């Protein structure tokens, strides 16, 4: 397919439909409104359905229902809207249903603002719902990667029976870039024999959340974590940039990592041995990416108050090896600020 110029939010819709998504349930919120808007135009054309729920709570439960019926379905929202969905997210995770959520993050906490932020690392990666569960969290760094990850999210969800969150921010949603739709790699996906497809003469299927016998619920959770261990082994992903001889490594994802990448180019031109490690999955977190012998310090740069620091610390085994720089509340970082921060940490080390 020839390249087209798409806004991130439009690209989500193209990619999802290409991946076979036929149902969308959502409620409007800035800065992701183009997603429901485009779905509302496109899904009726392919015999699918767009439903604007009366709230995010309704929308996530509609997604729960569609996923239980075996459909490829998704919802999208932005930070406060995802917060409202947390109960349903827990239910889908307990039921081990495949579903996709796109979160175009904005400044928080609370209602916050409408400018881009990475405010939901904790909520999405560590889990904002109750109980022992994980969601797979993909972190695209540009619009092309957003397209690739949205397509892949549906396959990953089906392969493992998991809820997959594509965690981008408002800027990636609003930014325009040339993209092409590419086929994701083949994955082993089983037919959905468990799906609730109505009375068709076979045995009844049941999808439920409640387990009143504690040992039964414990066993469910142990089984769930056996599955999570496989995912942690197979799916953790990251990208290195200029890391071959780097003595100082930035740790950054999404929009922040794009600013950092330009800062790395600038610092390299001045002779500094810096590189960038960019996690592409936030759960599972690519812990092995931060275990480098040559690296003296990890420079964590995010659009929040440092929500990824703990994971980088677990990975490198020493919190003192991490320095942080970021802006929060929807304020963007600049290339010059990142360079200045790095130089301060590195001193005169070239």
């Amino acid at each position, binding site marked *: 397919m020839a390249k087209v110029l798409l806004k991130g939010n439009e690209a989500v819709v193209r990619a999802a439909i290409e991946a076979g998504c036929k149902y969308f349930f959502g409620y409007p919120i800035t800065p992701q409104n183009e997603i429901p808007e485009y779905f509302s135009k496109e899904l009726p054309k392919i015999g699918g359905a767009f439903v604007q729920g009366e709230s995010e709570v309704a929308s996530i439960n509609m997604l729960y229902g569609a996923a239980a019926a075996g459909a490829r379905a998704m919802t999208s929202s932005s930070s406060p809207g995802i917060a409202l969905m947390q109960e349903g997210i827990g239910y889908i995770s307990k039921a081990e249903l495949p579903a996709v959520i796109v979160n175009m993050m904005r400044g928080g906490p609370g209602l916050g603002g409408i400018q881009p932020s990475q405010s939901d690392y904790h909520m999405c990666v560590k889990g904002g719902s109750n109980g022992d569960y994980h969601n797979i969290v993909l972190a695209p760094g540009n619009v092309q990667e957003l397209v690739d990850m949205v397509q892949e999210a549906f396959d990953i969800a089906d392969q493992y029976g998991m809820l997959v969150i594509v965690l981008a921010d408002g800027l990636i949603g609003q930014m*325009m870039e040339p993209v092409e739709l590419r086929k994701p790699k083949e994955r082993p996906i089983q037919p959905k024999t468990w799906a609730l497809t109505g009375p068709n003469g076979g045995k009844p299927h049941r999808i439920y959340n409640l387990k009143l016998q504690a040992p039964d619920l414990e066993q469910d959770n142990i089984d769930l974590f056996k599955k999570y261990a496989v995912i942690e082994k197979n799916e953790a992903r990251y990208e290195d940039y200029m890391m071959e001889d780097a003595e100082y490594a930035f740790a950054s994802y999404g929009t922040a990592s794009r600013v950092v990448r330009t800062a790395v180019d600038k610092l390299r031109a001045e002779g500094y041995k810096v590189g960038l490690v960019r996690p592409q999955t936030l759960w599972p977190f690519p812990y092995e990416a931060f275990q480098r012998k040559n690296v003296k310090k990890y420079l964590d740069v995010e659009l929040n108050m440092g929500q990824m620091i703990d994971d980088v610390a677990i990975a490198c085994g020493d919190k003192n090896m991490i320095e942080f720089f970021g802006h929060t509340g929807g304020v963007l970082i600049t290339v010059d600020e990142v360079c200045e921060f790095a130089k301060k940490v590195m001193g005169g080390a070239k």
Partner: protein
Amino acid sequence: MVVDDKRIRIITGYYGSGKTEFAVNYAYKMAREVKRPAIADLDIVNVYFRSREKTKEMEEAGIEVISSSVVEDNCDMPALSSRITVPFLDKSYDYIIDLGGSEVGAKVLGRFGDLIDKNEVDFFMVVNIFRPETGNEDEIIHQMRLLEQMSGFKITGLVNNSNLIHETRVEDILEGDAYLRKVSELTKIPIRYTTCMVDEVQQYSALIDKVGGEFFPMSYNMRTIWM
């Protein structure tokens, strides 16, 4: 030259066609050619990448910037400032209006229809053939009719802004030119400008005599260096 256009230039186009980047570049050119340039940002559709974000830089260049927002930059309420009407009536201004995308954005103009002398207006449609819904002459004409219906104004000129950001090649601009020539032939609306990011497109000079309308060199104002 922009000084040859009518006193009030209204910029419209499909959502994401590059209206704002064109309008801001146009405003800077206007600042060099006219006495009293003003730009109004009537974009109530987008929440990011709005021309009002460049208020400080444009004011330093001598351009009067009239924001549609009555509260603050980061507010996405569809409220319009009454200051917008001043340059419609005060003929000492050369005025450029940056409308929001698609027919939804063009609708805003309907409210000002009675205040504007249509003989004083150029209504330019910006087209990027690499955006959805404007990929061929039929789609472009369909969008054009929607914009005209919603705004109550007739398009007077086409702006070929066909690009793939940093991946734009001379051939891409020429492909846009070919489609816009067909549109022009069918609608009798001339191509007024063909844009080009001159710092980005290699061998852009090959375009100057080949493309329809006036060659309109541009530079990025709305994208920062890391984008």
